[in-house]
């Protein structure tokens, strides 16, 4: 696909269409919120920014689909080869995943940060999904380790070879290639319960990461006939179910959204978006639920729905909108407005919480000895207090909450639930670095304004 476009390009600037899932994200962008997620690798020694900058310059050409700026076409947004060689490597900030502006950061749609022993990259979701992001971050970190320590890290797993160039399958829109179902899955999403709370000021988010050993967590999940994702989703749903019950109000459905990496089902190796979300819900009006029942409900539902045919029909339903000639003919501002309005009206109203599990990030053993943990932080919600990103590297599993509310009840109940089940959890958070009276005037505290 990409190659075909290149041939038609007659030697002009490299450009790409946004993929099917990525098309909505520019429309959802506002002055205070963007759909941005973060991947972060913690090393065993302090990060050297100069070396990181060098590594970034070497790695970026391998990922042409990240080496882009976003531009407005007449009908759609599109990516164009970036004007500058690489984005700046910046010291980390206390409010990760703050909003993106297309003109900032030299026009790049990802940001590279370092702090103490951590290398973090934040991606605008139109660019890629969690898996694509992990490939970039691991390749970047591997190159950093090669330069810094002379480590001999062979390519493999999430580390791509820098000697090769990106082939067309890495740059393709896999939705277009694989969405071939004759049936379009219908969406029947009802509005669901949301936990209320006092919000943090705009641009702020509470990040809480819990580190735990993978083997113990896996043992616990297996003992309950579930996978780790299913088990954690069940805890999240159980917490919300109980909170709603305490509120003594009309009981609404409780749902947990779980994105799924389609590369596991379809033979794609794209670096761009290729994931879908499905949500599992329970209706509390049906009666009392125990944790075991919720866990069973979630794990059975996920196994039922997670098959090629169902996923294909969901993909086809999304593609149908894009393929619709009427939709295609609408000028970009109209599309943008329609997306902004529909997202403003329905954003997250159909999901109570979200959990995304990247699964084990596989890196070569030579790299593993330098690496301590991999943290996946999801984009902060608009309504959801609990959005959880999880990933594991080696034997360290990290579950990260991005919470836009001031209270920490969900995080607390989530991690203490695991502690009670005998999982040792280590907590790390940015809560302490947010001053108490920050809320009154956020601009009084180190306003680092980037232009």
């Amino acid at each position, binding site marked *: 696909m990409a190659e075909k476009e290149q041939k038609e390009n007659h030697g002009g600037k490299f450009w790409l269409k946004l993929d099917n899932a990525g098309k909505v994200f520019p429309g959802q962008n506002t002055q205070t919120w963007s759909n941005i997620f973060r991947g972060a690798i913690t090393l065993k020694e302090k990060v050297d920014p100069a070396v990181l900058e060098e590594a970034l310059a070497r790695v970026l050409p391998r990922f042409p689909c990240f080496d882009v700026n976003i531009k407005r076409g007449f009908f759609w947004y599109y990516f164009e080869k970036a004007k500058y060689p690489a984005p700046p490597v910046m010291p980390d900030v206390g409010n990760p995943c703050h909003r993106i*502006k297309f003109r900032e950061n030299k026009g790049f749609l990802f940001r590279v940060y370092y702090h103490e022993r951590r290398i973090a990259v934040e991606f605008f979701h139109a660019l890629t999904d969690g898996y694509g992001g992990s490939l970039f971050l691991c390749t970047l970190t591997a190159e950093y380790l090669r330069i810094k320590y002379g480590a001999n890290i062979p390519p493999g797993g999430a580390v791509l070879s820098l000697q090769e160039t990106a082939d067309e399958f890495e740059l393709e829109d896999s939705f277009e290639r694989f969405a071939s179902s004759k049936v379009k899955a219908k969406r029947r999403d009802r509005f669901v319960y949301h936990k209320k709370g006092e919000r943090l000021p705009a641009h702020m988010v509470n990040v*809480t990461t819990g580190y735990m050993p993978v083997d113990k967590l896996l043992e616990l999940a297996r003992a309950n006939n579930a996978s780790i994702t299913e088990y954690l989703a069940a805890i999240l749903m159980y917490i919300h179910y109980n909170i709603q019950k305490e509120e003594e109000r009309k009981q609404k459905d409780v749902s947990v959204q779980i994105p799924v990496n389609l590369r596991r089902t379809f033979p794609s190796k794209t670096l761009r978006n290729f994931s879908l979300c499905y949500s599992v819900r329970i209706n509390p009006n049906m009666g009392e639920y125990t944790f075991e029942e919720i866990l069973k409900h979630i794990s059975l539902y996920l196994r039922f729905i997670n098959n090629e045919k169902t996923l294909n029909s969901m993909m086809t339903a999304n593609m149908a909108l894009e393929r619709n000639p009427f939709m295609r003919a609408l000028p970009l501002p109209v599309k943008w407005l329609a997306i902004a309005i529909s997202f403003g009206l329905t954003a997250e109203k159909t999901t109570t919480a979200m959990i995304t599990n990247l699964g084990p990030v596989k890196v070569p053993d030579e790299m593993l000895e330098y690496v301590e943990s991999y943290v996946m932080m999801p984009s902060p919600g608009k309504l959801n207090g609990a959005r959880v990103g999880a990933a594991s590297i080696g034997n360290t599993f990290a579950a990260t909450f991005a919470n836009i509310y001031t209270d920490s009840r969900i995080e607390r109940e989530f*991690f203490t639930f695991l502690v009670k089940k005998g999982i040792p959890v280590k907590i790390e958070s940015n809560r302490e670095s947010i001053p108490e009276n920050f809320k009154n005037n956020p601009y009084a505290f180190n306003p680092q304004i980037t232009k």
Partner: protein
Amino acid sequence: MSYCVNCGVELDSSAKICALCSTPVINPNIKTTEPAPVPYPDKYMIPPKVRRRYAAFLATMIMLIPNIVCVLVNLLVPRGGKWSIFVVASSALLWMMVFLPMLMKKTRPFILLTVDAVALCLYIYVFYAIYRQEGWFTGLVFPLIAGLYVIIAGMIKWLRKKRDWVKIAINVFLSIAVYSLYADFFISRFYEAERPLGVSLVIAASCIALIIFFKFVEKNKRFRAWLTRKFFV
């Protein structure tokens, strides 16, 4: 390495309180040497606010151009009458209502309301001054705008505190009833109508019926609870 006594989770070595429950971390075994690195820096990327005032200033400048052109053309070609006055007056009204609030640093509803009322009066006065006819400005327009101003100002003042929705409904209907009577009085006086207060009495009566209903809702807690349950959105 400390653990939270409340949650049982291990905490970061820099933590002074538990991130989950805010319980202070006191570990007498750890001697305070140099502070441990914090997981996240206390520097924030707070993007600048939308430059609303700048945008309003730009819009003002852009709006000035056609106005100046109209005035100049009108002065150079005075045959068509003083038509540029209408352009300038309409632009001025638009500016007062839309761009002035954007230029203010803080929203001040009373000042804005007063400015809007005065601007509206002046705008209509421009037409009145040009087509002088039977005193409709003083007899009709001015009292109507003044009455509306008083009622809205009173409502804003009253709504500055958080009010119960039933009370808000009662007050809104009361305002509608009063204003309709007030407006009808001036309209029928100006046009010397045969049967004054005809329409407004109908409006006022319906409003009063609704007010009585809401008064009942306010008093009767059980009925109110039923309503809340039934019309829960």
